[in-house]
Structures are given as structure tokens and as C-alpha cells.
């Protein structure tokens, strides 16, 4: 009898706590549903329509068929993939290297480096893009001035106007604006690695490299997973730099899916077609993120 009373009381307590938890979540849930879930479904729904400023007619999978047949979309897709494939590993590896180099430094020195690398993150994208644009300028830019000064180039290079260099310029800028947060996260994660494990390994004769890969790397795997996913999403959604620096040119060599969505939806008012591309992009990001979860989870420690 007494046991039954205790069970009932604990159930009531659990229910009360659960109810409180849901009540605390409710405001966030309200905004999440209103600004994320509902627009996502609207996006999916309207992607099956020829939705323009003056038309809203059902076209089934017509937008998706057109999308895969569209040469500019295909170019934009492969440009986006290139950005992701280059940016994500380089950002992660560089951030890990910087993080592991500075996390044991004096607090002041460490903060200095964190500030330096985080500065592009907190600086407005427009300001960053304008400064880079000045540096890439064909006639008065810093890069051409230096390279022609040391005799590395005979004539000035139009860095953002050349098909061969423009996408790499975008990746470089994206790299500098993406490393700040991962570095800060890695510094924090490395500082939190259990020192007793590190010391035990060192006592057992492990080298620095062995200690890093056998002890520290598995310990910071959750951070790595977060860095990978966030960097992947940011790289897939590269838009502002393209809009501000190249408008997708030259000859569509810097078109990304995000920029092409903007162009179709906001310049040509083809919202349905833009939404179809948005759904495709979301699916690709979800697949990439799931793969990263699967791969990195297998190598992490609890």
C-alpha cells in the first residue's frame, strides 16, 4: 500500500516537472514553429506551384524537373559543393591547429589571439567584403601591388573577375570569417580535457602526438562535430559574399545555390522555383549533417 502511494506521488512529481519544462519551452516553441516549421512547410508546399507575383498554379514536380535541367543551377550546385569540400576541412583543421597552439598560453596572449581570429566574425559582412574588394581590386588592390612589386606578375590580375580565381577568393574570405568561432570552441574544449588522463598517458611514455590523438582528440570530438556541422551549413548557405562581391560572376563561376535562389525569387519573382531549390538545399544539408554525425560519433568518447 505504502509502495503504491510512493509510486503515485513520484508520478505526480514527474508530471509536474514535465509540465513545467514544457511551459518553459513554450515561448521558444512558439517562435520555432512560427518562424521555422511553418515556413518550411509553406516552402515545401509552394515548391509544387508556379508561384510568381501574378500566378499560383499547380505544376507538380515541374519546378524540380526544371531545376535539375537548369545549367546555371547545376553550375551553382557544383560551386557550392566545391566551397563546402574545401572550406569545411580547412576551417576545421586550421582551427584545431590554432586552438591547440594557443590554449596553453598565458591568458592574456590567448585572449589576444582569440580576439584577432574572432574579429572578422563580429565585423559586419558588408565591411569585410568591402575591404576584401579593395584588396582584390585589379588596378589599385593590395595583392596586385605586392605581386607586381616583387615581380611575381607581369600584368594586374582581376581576382574577382577571372573565372579561375574568383571562387578561390570567395573561399579565402569565407575561411577568414569562419575560423573565429571554431578556434574559440577548440580552445575551450582543449582546456576542458581531463588532465589526469593526459598525465597518465605521459607517465606511460606517450609522445605528444600520441597523447593528442589518443586522449585529446576523442575528448573534443563533440566540439569537432559541432564545428563540422556549423561550418558545413554556413558554407552551403554562402550568399552575402557572392551578392556583395561577384553577383555570381564571372560567367556564373561563383554562383551558389543560395545566391541563385535569391536571384530567381527576388529578382525574377519566381518564388515557387526558388522554394524548390531551397528544399533541395535543405535536403542536401540534412544528408551531409547526418553523415557527419554518424562518422564523428563513432570516434567519440562519452
Amino acid at each position, binding site marked *: 500500500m505504502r509502495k503504491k502511494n510512493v509510486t503515485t506521488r513520484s508520478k505526480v512529481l514527474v508530471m509536474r516537472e514535465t509540465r513545467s519544462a514544457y511551459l518553459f519551452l513554450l515561448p521558444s516553441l512558439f517562435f520555432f514553429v512560427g518562424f521555422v516549421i511553418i515556413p518550411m512547410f509553406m516552402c515545401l508546399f509552394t515548391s509544387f506551384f508556379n508561384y*510568381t*507575383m*501574378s*500566378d499560383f498554379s499547380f505544376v507538380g514536380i515541374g519546378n524540380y524537373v526544371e531545376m535539375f535541367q537548369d545549367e546555371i543551377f547545376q553550375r551553382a550546385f557544383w560551386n557550392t559543393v566545391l566551397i563546402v569540400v574545401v572550406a569545411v576541412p580547412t576551417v576545421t583543421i586550421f582551427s584545431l591547429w590554432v586552438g591547440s597552439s594557443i590554449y596553453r598560453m598565458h591568458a592574456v596572449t590567448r585572449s589576444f589571439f582569440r580576439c584577432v581570429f574572432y574579429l572578422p566574425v563580429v565585423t559586419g559582412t558588408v565591411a569585410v567584403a568591402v575591404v576584401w*574588394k579593395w584588396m*582584390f*581590386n*585589379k*588596378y*589599385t588592390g593590395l595583392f596586385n601591388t605586392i605581386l607586381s612589386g616583387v615581380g611575381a606578375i607581369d600584368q594586374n590580375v*582581376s*581576382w*574577382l*573577375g*577571372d*573565372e579561375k580565381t*574568383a571562387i578561390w577568393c570567395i573561399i579565402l574570405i569565407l575561411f577568414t570569417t569562419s575560423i573565429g568561432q571554431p578556434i574559440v570552441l577548440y580552445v575551450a574544449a582543449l582546456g576542458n580535457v581531463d588532465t589526469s588522463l593526459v598525465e597518465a598517458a605521459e607517465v606511460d611514455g606517450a609522445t605528444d602526438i600520441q597523447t593528442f590523438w589518443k586522449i585529446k582528440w576523442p575528448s573534443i570530438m563533440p566540439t569537432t562535430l559541432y564545428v563540422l556541422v556549423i561550418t558545413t551549413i554556413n558554407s552551403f548557405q554562402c550568399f552575402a559574399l557572392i551578392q556583395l*562581391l*561577384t*553577383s555570381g*560572376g*564571372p*560567367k*556564373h563561376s561563383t554562383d551558389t545555390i543560395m545566391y541563385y535562389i535569391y*536571384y530567381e*525569387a*527576388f*529578382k*525574377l*519573382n519566381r*518564388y515557387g522555383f526558388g522554394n524548390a531549390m531551397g528544399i533541395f538545399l535543405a535536403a542536401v544539408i540534412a544528408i551531409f549533417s547526418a553523415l557527419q554525425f554518424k562518422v564523428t560519433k563513432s570516434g567519440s568518447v562519452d
Partner: protein
Amino acid sequence: MTAAIEAGTTPDIIMEGPERLVSNWGAKGKMIDLADLWDDEALADISATSEAVVAACKSESGAYYEYPLCMTTHTMAINKELFEEADAMQYINDDRTWTTENFEKALQALKDHGVETTGVVYCGGQGGDQGTRALAMNLYNAEFTNADHTEWTMNSEAGVKGLQQLVDWCDAGLLSYDSGAVASDEIQLFANETIAMSFCWNAANQLTYAAETAFTPYPVAFPSESGTPELCGGIWGFGIFDNGDADKIAASKIFIEFICDDATQGPISISNTGFFPVRSSYGNIYAGTEDEERMETYASFQKWLGDYYNVTLGWAEQRTAWWNMLQQIFDGEDVQAAADAYVETCNTATADASAN
């Protein structure tokens, strides 16, 4: 505005050009017909300045979706002192026109004088594309569209010849191109004397860059084979979004009439834009002001205002296709083939827009 239109949160009044008010939003039923503002007096007064302005504000269905306030012609500009030093001013006529042949001679004179980069054909985006369009079009007096504004025609013999000429000048080092620059970048290069001329200039630009230039920006027409240029224009005026509130629409019309037509406010409104009145009855609104001399110079270009082809349907697609086509030809692609592909893209866009 696109987001506002879809969200139903548009303003009552908007100031824009006919390419959006008439050919885009008006054609899609988003705007109010302003025919009652276009009474006989207004029609006669604005027609006396330019029939092209009236035509631009009127839709194919006959509705007036724009009530115009001001206009300008887009020109190019040269660094006068540099041209004088290079003895290149001789190639420009007193009325600020020049022929294609003389333009080439001027480029050569600048080059011989040691000017590294004479001018830049910018094609990194659509910003200021009226300059590159006017340049390519005028060199051999091509037409940008047909008279009905239903087809794009820069793949004509004259159009291709003009485009080819630009490529040839770039290959010969007489001109330069930059697929990474837009008009604002080019103007900045002109203002800091890196280049000797700008292809994107007008009265407002001269005022904006006055403090930054240590030389005399000398506005000139675009060079043409015949010597008679056809300049691109800008027309700005008001439209009213159809927000379904008759009272607001009526009040908006009263406001627009006051801003544009009031004998005192009208000229003030126009002088604030830095451009010229569409109403001939206003005369020289800059007379007796410190801007008189500068504006008189720019007013002299008004007589070469060309066809306002910006109202051709598919305008937005055309703008993107234009600078992409320029990038292709400067990158070595066959000019005729690139121009044909550009025209095909534009005509498809125009046909699609007409069908909708």
C-alpha cells in the same frame, strides 16, 4: 519591395522608374491607374519635353502606372586636364559629342601620352549597366530593342560591330575591361585618377564626386559612328500601390500632385533630386542658383535622349544576361555567338513575361 508585395505590406506611394512601376508591378496588377492625374494639361506639358516619357509611364493596356517627376540623361565623363595634356580634346566637338573614329584617336593619344588605363568596361554586375549598354550601342548606332519593345536586337550587325570594337580596343590595350568591377568601382577609379574616363556619369554623380576629384570631370556624350548619340535616360516618378483603401488612394494622389505639380513645391522637389523636370513649363529650375552652370551643361544632353527601352518586358533577366555576355566576349568567346545567346535569353524572358 518584393517581400512587401507578397506580404501585403507595401507602402501607399513609391518613387521609382517605369521599368518597375509600369512594366513589372503595374503589369502584374499591383498598381493603381493614375490616368486622372494625367489630364490634358499634364499630358501636353510632359509631351512637350519628351514623348518618350509619356510612353514609358503608360502600360500596354493604356493605364498610367507612373506620374513622372524628373528625368536625366546618362553620359560619360573624361578627365579634362588629362585630355588636354594628351592633346585629345581636339577629338571632342564643341557640343560634347564625338565620333567613334575620333574616340579611338583620343584613346590612342592618351596611350601615347603614357596613360596606362584609359577607361574600364566594367561588367562585374548590373550596377550602372546603362553606361556599358550606351557605349556598345552607340559605337555603330545600333538599336537595343525594336520600336515596339517586343524584341532585343543587340545581335544586329551594328550591335555586334560595337561589341567587337570594344573587344578589339581591349586587345590592343587602348581600353581595359574588368569582370570584377561594377560602375561604382569604375567611378571611384575615375575619381582617383587611375583611369581617364568614366562610362557611368550624370549630373548627380558630378555633385557626389565633386569633393573627391582634383580635376575637372568633363561630361561628354557617348561616341557614335554618325556623331549623333542616343543616350540612355532615367525617369523617376510616383506610383500608388493598390492597397484596397479608396481614401488612402485619393489622399496619395493629392500628395503626388502637390509634390510634382504645385507651382512652388514642384521645382523644389525636382532640384532635390538633382535632375531635370519632365514638365516643360517649369523651364530652367536651376536658373539663378549655384548649380546653374553645371546643370545647363547636363541639360544640353537632353536632346539626345534615346528610346526608353527599359520598359521592355523581361528587363530584369536582360540586365543579368548583359553583363554575363560582356564577360563572355572579353574572355574570348565569339562575339556574334555570345550576342545571339544573349538576345535569345532576353527574348525568351520577354515572351514569358508577356504570356503571364
